[in-house]
C-alpha cells in the first residue's frame, strides 16, 4: 500500500466528488472503504504489476501456510534450509510432543522453531480449526425424503450452472465441457432441500426430476405458493 492514493468521497449522492470517484473505479485497483474515506491501491494482479514478476507477486499475496512437523516428518522430509541434526536433537530432547514450526518466505526459511505441542487430544487441530481439504465427505443421503436427479437432456450444462451455484451443500457438479456438458447431483451430499429445483432457469420443466417425475403441480404449489 506504499503507493496508495486517497480519495475522499464526501457529499450527497449526486455531488461531483462522487461522480468523479465512480468514473475513476477500475478493476485493476483495490478499494478500501472506511467510513467516508476510500483508500485506493493497485490490485496485486493488475497488468502493471504482473508484467514483470508474476510469481513473486503471487507469493507475496498468498503466503505459504507455515508447517508444523513431527520428528518423523522432519526426518522423512529433511526440509532444506535448516540445521537438520541440531533440530532433530532438539526435538528428541523435547520428546514425542516435539514439533518443528517452519515458516518459509519467498522460498527461504524465515523461522524454524522447535516447541512442545500443548495438545492432549492430538487429533484435533489447535483452535479446533478444520482443514477443509482433509475433511472427508459425510453421507447425508438419509436426510432426503425425495430423490433428485438431473436429466442430462434438459440440462443446459455450462451455459447455465445456476443449480451448482445455489446448492448449499456443493452437491451439484458440472460434468464435461462445451455443448455436451451437464450437471450431476452427488447422491451422498444431496439433502433434498429443493433449492436447485426452485431456482432452475428452466423452472425444472424437464431438467430436475423429483422422484422420477418432471412436473408435479401439487409440489410446485407447495414451493412457489401457486
Amino acid at each position, binding site marked *: *500500500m506504499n503507493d496508495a492514493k486517497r480519495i475522499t468521497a464526501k*457529499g*450527497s449522492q449526486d*455531488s461531483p466528488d462522487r461522480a468523479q470517484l465512480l468514473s475513476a473505479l477500475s478493476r485493476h485497483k483495490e478499494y*478500501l472503504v*472506511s*467510513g467516508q474515506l476510500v483508500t485506493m491501491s493497485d490490485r496485486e494482479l493488475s497488468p502493471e504489476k504482473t508484467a514483470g514478476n508474476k510469481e513473486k507477486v503471487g507469493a507475496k499475496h*498468498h*503466503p*505459504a*501456510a*507455515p508447517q*508444523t512437523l513431527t520428528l518423523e516428518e522432519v526426518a522423512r522430509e529433511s526440509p532444506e534450509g535448516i540445521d537438520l541434526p541440531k533440530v532433530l536433537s532438539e526435538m528428541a530432547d523435547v520428546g514425542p510432543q516435539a*514439533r518443528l*514450526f517452519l*515458516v518459509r518466505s519467498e522460498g527461504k526459511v*524465515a*523461522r524454524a*522453531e522447535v*516447541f*512442545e*505441542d*500443548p*495438545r*492432549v*487430544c492430538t*487429533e*484435533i*487441530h*489447535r*483452535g*479446533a*480449526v*478444520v*482443514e*477443509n*481439504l482433509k475433511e472427508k465427505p459425510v453421507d447425508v443421503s438419509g436426510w432426503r425424503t425425495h430423490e433428485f436427479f438431473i436429466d442430462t437432456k434438459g440440462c443446459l450444462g455450462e451455459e447455465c450452472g445456476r443449480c451448482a451455484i445455489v446448492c448449499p451443500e456443493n452437491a451439484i457438479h458440472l460434468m464435461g465441457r462445451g455443448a455436451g456438458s451437464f450437471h450431476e447431483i452427488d447422491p451422498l451430499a444431496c439433502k433434498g432441500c429443493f433449492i436447485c429445483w426452485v431456482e432452475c432457469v428452466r423452472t425444472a420443466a424437464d431438467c430436475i426430476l423429483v422422484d422420477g417425475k418432471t412436473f408435479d403441480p401439487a409440489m410446485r404449489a407447495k414451493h412457489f405458493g401457486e
Partner: protein
Amino acid sequence: MNVLIRGRFAVVATVLSGNSAAAWGFRLSRVQCYPYYPITPSTSCSEQISRWVNDGAMDTVTINAESEHSAASQIIAAGKSVRAGTATSSKGLLYMIEVLENAAGASIPCGLFIGNRATGAPINIWGDHSDAYAMRDSGVIQLFAADAQEALDNVIQGYRIAEDLSVRLPFAVNLRGFTGTHAYEGVEIPEPADVDGYLFPFVPLYPLFATEKPVTYGAMLSGNFYRRHKRNQMAAISNVPEIVLKAGREFGERFGRPYGLFEWVGDEKAQLVIALMGESASAGEAVTHHLQGKKGIPGVALLKLRLFSPFPAREIARALAKAGTKALVVFEEGLHHGAVFPPLAQRIATAIHLHLGADAPKVASVIGGLGGSEVRQQHFQLMFNLADNLAEGRPYRTEPYWLDIEEDPIFAESEKEVAPALWKKWGEVWKRQARKEQYFRPLPKDTEEIRIYSRAGQGAITSAVGFTGAGIQCGHQLLTVPAFGSERRGAIITTDTLVNERGKRKIRSFNRAWDVVILYDDTILSSPAHNVLEGLKEGGVLLVNTSRLRSAKIREILGASESRVRVFTVPASEVAQGLGLSHLNMAMLGALHRVYEKIPFEKALTYYEKHVPRPREASLEAIQQGFQQTADRQAASAKKERRFVVSNDFLDWRPQDHSLDLWPSALEEIQLG
C-alpha cells in the same frame, strides 16, 4: 526528554499517560490491525493510534467499528492472519466478552488493552476491576499493570506470550482507569529495533487465505470433539506461567526491566502479606517500606500480582511457604456476587489450600477502591494490623471486610459504631480485635505535592504535564494525576502533581498534604464547595491568578490572616491577554516555578523551549513573564478587572450551523426546496 543510564541501557524517559504508554506498546509491537470503539477511560489509547496511522507513523489498518462487539469480532477475524489489537473498558469489555471466548477457543493471539472501570448500575466511569473480573472465564490471558511503564511493557510482552507456539491465546493488559490511564509520568520508550529483536513478526498457525491449505474457523463440533478441544485449550493456557516467566526474563535482559508472575515487595521472611493487583499497589508499597523493620512489627510484604489468568497457583503457594507467611489479607477492587470470596481471594485461598494444606496461611478478604474510591496509605496500615490479628489467632470474618464503610468498619470498639444487624453477626469478631499503635505511626512524607484548582478548559493539565516533563529532565520522579468527572467546561477541577525529589524508589501515592496550591481563577476563592486551604501544609504556598486582589485581601477572604501560609499572586490572565494567548496556563506555569524552587527555572526552560505548545514564542514569553510577575504582595495599586473579550462570533454560534458547514450540498438542497 531525559537520558537515564541504567546499567548498559541508555534509555529516554518521556512524559506519557497510561493510555499513551499502551498505545506505544501497540505501536512498537507493530500491530497490523486495530479496530476500536472508544469508551472512557481507554479512549485516548485508540485516539493516539488513529492519529499515528493518519500521520503515517504506523503501518496499521484502523477500523471505526460500530460497537465493541464488532471491534472484538474484527480483532478475531484479523488475528487469524495478522497481529491485531484494540482497547476498551467497562461495559465495552462486557459487550466484547461474548465474542472473546471465540478468540480463546479458536486459539487466536490478539491483544486488548483495558482501562479498568466500574460496571453499572449505577453508572460510574472511574476505576476498579469489575470489568476484568467479568472477563476472567473467557479464556483470555490477563496481565495487570501498576503504572504506565508496565502497561507499555506488558503490551509488548503480551504479544510475545500470546503468540508463543505452546500458548496461542488472546491476552488483555489491565490498567486502572484514570489513576493509571490518565496519570502522566516518566516512561521509557524502548527502541523499535530492540522490540523487533524481542518480538517475532506475526505468523499465523492457520492463515485464513492460504490457498494450498484452506481452513474453517469456528466450525460446529459435537460433544465428543468439543470436550476434547476444550481439554486442549486448557492445556495451552496452563503453559502460560512458564512462558510469562521466560518472556519477562528475556525482556529484562534486553530492556533492563525484568518481569515475573508477581512482584514481592518487602521482607523476604514476611509473616504478614497483603496480596493485590494493579495500580493501587503504589500506596501499599509506601506503607510496606515504612513498616519494614519497625519495632513490634513482624516481617511485612506486598504480593503484587501481574498474572491473574491463568492463576499461578503453585508459584504463589511456594512463595508464601518460603516466606513463612502466617496471615494473608487479599485486597481487591471488585466483587463476585454471591460467592464466598471475591475472585482474587477465592483463587488465592484455593491455591494455598490445595498446595499447602494444613500449613496454609489464614486468608481474609478486603474489598475497597470500588468505583474510583481512593486507596490510601492509611488503608494499608489497617490491613497490616488486620493481618497481625489473624496471625495471632484472633477470630476473623469468613466473608469480605470493606474499606471506608462507616457502618461496617474493620475495627470497632462498640455496638454503637456499626450497623445493628452486623453486630449480631460479627460482634464477637469486632470485640476481640486489637488495634495496635505500631501500625498507625505517622506516615513518612517523602514527596512534595502540588494541587491546581482551575476551571475545566483553562489548560491546567497541559501546564502540569509540562511541569512534570521539566521535573523529570531535572532527574526527579514526577507524577501528575488530573481529576476527571462529569464536570462541564468551566467547572472547578483539580490537577495534582507529586514530586519525588531524586527518589531512588518510584512513589505513586499521594499524601494529600499540599506544598503548593494554585488557583487559576480568583473566583474559586469564593466557591462554597471548595476549601482551597484544606490539606495545605503549614508554611505552604497559595498562588492565585488575580489582577484585582492583593494577598492580604485573599487572606481575609479565606479567613487565614494569622496563618503561616504564604500567599502569592500573579496577573496571569493579563499576561496571556497581552501576548494574544487564548490560555493563561503558560503564565501560571512560569509562576509555579517562582514559588516552587526545587525544579530550577533555568533548567526547566531548556525543556519548555523544546516542548512548549504552540504558539511557541508567545508561550515561552508567557512563562517568563509569569515567573517575573509573581509577587507575594501587589506592587502597584489594584488594577481594574480585565476579562477576555467575548466576540459576536462566539455568541452567534449555534450547533446546527456546524452540521451545515460540513454538508454544503445538503444546504443547497434545502434552499432549493
